[in-house]
């Protein structure tokens, strides 16, 4: 079997006039935490629904744990745990009964129910045996994860798992996801529009926008493919930019005396500083900055990048 637990090739799906997925290609390596990133409406949930056989593809090939989807959907789903958007829970039943219900459907053992409750920290009787309608949002989300973990899956598909959680709940959820591959041997396919979430957890990243994959690879590869930047602070920005351009450096003015310069490592920064000083340009500050995943994401998706505007110099002094 291939070492990829998910393989999608040329997947297309249209809803009326909207092309939701347009030739999606995706590979999820076994044992990874795969961050599936994209803005709202990019096609993340549609991709997941096709993976689970909830939607039919109009073109392309989908393989889940080696099984073609939708032809061998049931064989694949036996080895997969899912949480698609908000958890589907029955509020009139207790947390335990919600798990028991799914246990009966998948023919799992009662011990698996206890294990799932224990992993998400809902095994105390006061939590497990009260109706879900009395649960907080965080507890519901954890119960949703417990439902996904119930079959002891090889692959966990989580769609926006931190939706509606407070900061403490988000932290707890991240820790839970982080330890999945190591402790439980589970590959995690994590879909989110939250960059911070993906940045902190993912070992592999796929970025989708307008139904197309615009990047796929290891998280480090994504960041390494972008050059470092130096942020220069001066009160003679225009002259500094002219001088830098003459020496082959590309720069952009961010306002308030801040100029961003594309550089190749720290030696390049030292050379840039010497050039400016030799050219009589006062340098009040100079530091290197690695572009964040957010910067890269915005660049890839063609969204405007908003640079923070520090107020070191009054705007008028530069005009």
């Amino acid at each position, binding site marked *: 079997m291939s070492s990829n637990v998910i393989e999608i090739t040329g997947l297309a799906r249209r809803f009326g006039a909207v092309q939701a997925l347009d030739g999606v290609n995706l590979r999820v390596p076994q044992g990874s935490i795969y961050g599936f990133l994209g803005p709202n409406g990019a096609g993340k949930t549609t991709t997941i629904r096709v993976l*689970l056989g*909830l*939607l039919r593809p109009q073109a392309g090939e989908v393989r889940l744990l080696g099984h073609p989807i939708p032809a061998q959907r*049931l064989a694949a*789903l*036996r080895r997969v745990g899912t949480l698609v958007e908000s958890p589907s*829970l029955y509020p009139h039943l207790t947390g335990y009964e919600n798990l028991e219900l*799914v246990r009966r459907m998948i023919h799992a053992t009662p011990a698996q129910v206890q294990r799932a409750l224990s992993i998400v920290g809902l095994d105390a009787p006061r939590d497990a045996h009260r109706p879900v309608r009395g649960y907080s949002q965080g507890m519901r989300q954890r119960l949703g994860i417990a439902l996904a973990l119930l079959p002891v899956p090889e692959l966990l598909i989580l769609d926006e798992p931190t939706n509606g959680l407070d900061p403490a709940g988000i932290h707890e959820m991240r820790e839970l996801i982080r330890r999945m591959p190591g402790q439980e041997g589970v590959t995690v396919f994590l879909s989110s529009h939250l960059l911070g979430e993906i940045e902190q957890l993912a070992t592999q990243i796929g970025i989708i926008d307008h139904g197309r994959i615009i990047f796929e690879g290891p998280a480090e590869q994504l960041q390494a493919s972008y050059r470092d930047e130096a942020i220069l602070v001066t009160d003679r920005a225009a002259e500094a930019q002219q001088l830098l351009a003459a020496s082959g450096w590309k720069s952009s003015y961010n306002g308030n005396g801040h100029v961003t310069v594309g550089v190749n490592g720290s030696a390049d920064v030292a050379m840039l500083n010497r050039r400016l000083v030799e050219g009589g340009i006062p340098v009040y500050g100079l530091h290197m900055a690695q572009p964040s995943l957010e910067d890269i994401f915005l660049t890839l998706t063609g969204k405007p990048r908003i640079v923070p505007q520090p107020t070191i110099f009054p705007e008028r002094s530069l005009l």
Partner: protein
Amino acid sequence: MKSLWRALSAETLKLKRTLALGLAFLAPLSIGFLLVVMYAEQGPPDGQTGHWMSLIQNGYVLWSLLMLPFFITLQMGLLANIEHGNKAWKLLYAQPLPRWAVYAAKQTISLGLIALSMAVFVAVMFLAGRLLQRINPAFRFDQPFPWDTVALATTVSFLASWLIVAFHLWFSIRVPSFVAAMAVGVVGTVAAVLVIQSEKYGPYYPWTLAGVSALNALHGDSFAISLAIGVTGGLAIALLGCWDASRREVL
């Protein structure tokens, strides 16, 4: 069959603490209450014998012609709403179970709830007669209860109701709006009050099939046509529902 059994086991648990389960007892109890009030108010009919049959026939008119079609509409709406309201279709259909089994389990549970309410109805009629006998011994409800006749009427009425059970279940699952499901049932039932008076159309109209079958069985008349329509129609719609569930997408 293992898949159906698993789905059925899950559906049974899902009924716990639901209004649908409570209504299976409350609906026939309300008919019993009406019968007791009506008979206690009017007193024993003069010069008539066989008071059990009078009570049973009045009970079946109220139950199978008026209450049952509304009750089925409501029950199917409530059962489907357990899934619609909690956006649970994506959970159900992402399980390693064939979708036809999930639908067939819902169909079985629906029929089970209707069978339960009918059994409760029979018990309620018996207890109503016994209570009336205590209130006024002139009622003569101390005579033997006609279990054979009532069992036949109840069985054929239950089987003939399958068509609207299957239809309302499919409609309620297909159309997430609870109001729309109720509207269809109300229109069907109100029209039934008129259609039942027609000898030509009464035995063929889906919402009168249970009532016509029960009353014909009680009177010793033939119920074959209404029973055949109810059972074959119910089976056909149930099978179509399984097929529809298998190919349906969950958006």
